[in-house]
């Protein structure tokens, strides 16, 4: 449990979506929605006034879009963590948001547990990649200016690398187990260990890590 509440400002031009998000977040222990905005300019003003820990914002908004407002917010308050909210098929916009300094992104229909997970992750200064990240987006992230920093201290053995490759090819735990003659349980254990080692929250993080460290090639996943 966190010691103090995480203060959150949310922004979206769909008023009812904002209502839903505010209600959902306010029901989560440890979270406090301290401000809401319906466009990028009000978002900047609200953030300047409220100084939240985390900003959860839509990308396409009137007046000033999420990308511009993220840049402006981070220029003044570099410690604030921004999460981008997107609809499907907005890969380019997500990349622009990450390049503008957002620490993570979520699809708008993400489950509440994923939304809370993402907020806690970025609050702890970790990147968060939505679990529904496509392979295409993962490879775009690796190629982009927002490409994550490689932690050199992570050492993986051959078997772990092999399992990572298979995970990236979207093979199920059972399929992996059958191929490398291990029990399903053992493979599950490996999965958990791999996620822990590379501090990834989900497969998206694994794919990005693997691409970045040349464990897999782009053509293997695309």
């Amino acid at each position, binding site marked *: 449990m966190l010691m103090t509440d995480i203060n959150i400002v949310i922004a979206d031009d*769909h008023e009812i979506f904002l209502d839903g998000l505010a209600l*959902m977040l306010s029901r989560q222990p440890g979270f406090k929605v301290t401000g809401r905005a319906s466009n990028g300019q009000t978002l900047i003003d609200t953030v300047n006034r409220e100084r939240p820990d985390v900003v959860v914002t839509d990308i396409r908004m009137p007046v000033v879009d999420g990308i511009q407002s993220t840049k402006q917010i981070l220029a003044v308050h570099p410690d604030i963590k921004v999460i981008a909210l997107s*609809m*499907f*098929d907005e890969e380019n916009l997500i990349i622009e948001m990450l390049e503008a300094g957002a620490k993570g992104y979520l699809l*708008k*229909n993400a489950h509440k547990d994923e939304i809370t997970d993402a907020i806690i992750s970025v609050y702890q200064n970790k990147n968060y990649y939505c679990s529904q990240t496509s392979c*295409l987006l993962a490879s775009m992230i690796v190629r982009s200016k927002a490409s994550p920093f490689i932690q050199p201290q992570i050492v993986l053995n051959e078997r772990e690398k092999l399992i990572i490759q298979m995970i990236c090819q979207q093979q199920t735990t059972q399929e992996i187990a059958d191929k490398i003659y291990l029990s399903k349980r053992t493979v599950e254990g490996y999965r958990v260990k791999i996620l822990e080692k590379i501090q990834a929250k989900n497969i998206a993080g694994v794919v990005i890590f693997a691409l970045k460290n040349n464990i897999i090639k782009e053509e293997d996943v*695309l």
Partner: protein
Amino acid sequence: MQDKLFYTVVIISILIAVVIIFFVVSVIRYHKRYMQLQKERIQAQIMIQEEERKRIANDLHDSLGPMLSTVKLFMNSIAVDNDTDQESLDKASGYIDETINNLREISYNLLPSSLDRNNLEMVVNEYISRMGNRQPIKITFSVTKDTVIPKKIEIHLFRIIQEIVHNTIKHSGARNLKLSITRHPGELLLISEDDGRGFEPDKIRAASGGLGLKSIENRCQMLDADLKIIAAKNQGCKMIIKVPVYG
């Protein structure tokens, strides 16, 4: 007397010739105008169709999508202490995800990844990775580095590529299809090459079908592009489309 007759014949001949020339010229001009109108009509049709598709795709993406996400958020906010109720909520929330996925599929079919939001290279890559998953054909696509494709022509190039891929899968039996866009001074070259069973373009055109080819030709006409098809029986098919780019 004979002179007079001669002149009369000459004058009448000239008159007849003038009338014939006038007639022929009119027919040619009429035909030209007809062709021009035909071209404009096709262009208008294509434009209207694309505009309509775009509008519907954007509505699905911008209004219905967020609305469904909102419903999910509200459902997620309901606190229940009964397992059966929780199960029902989870189920309903799963159906919303499914609906959003369907919405995405419909919107994609109308206007892939909404070209508004993404560039052609990405959209084509996504398209072929989708097609490649379902078909036993290897499709590759490349764009030379730093190629700027004018936004205005992206949709037409995409539809041409879509048609080529569709035709290749449906008719050619090819195992490989190579697509590329390269930049040259004043023009873009879209080249497709497959190793399928090939065809004879004239026969396809003459046959009742050939709608796919026709639609490629229509798009090329819109772009003032030059379309060259090199195909013969059992020798695969190569298409070279030269698109002029201004400015």
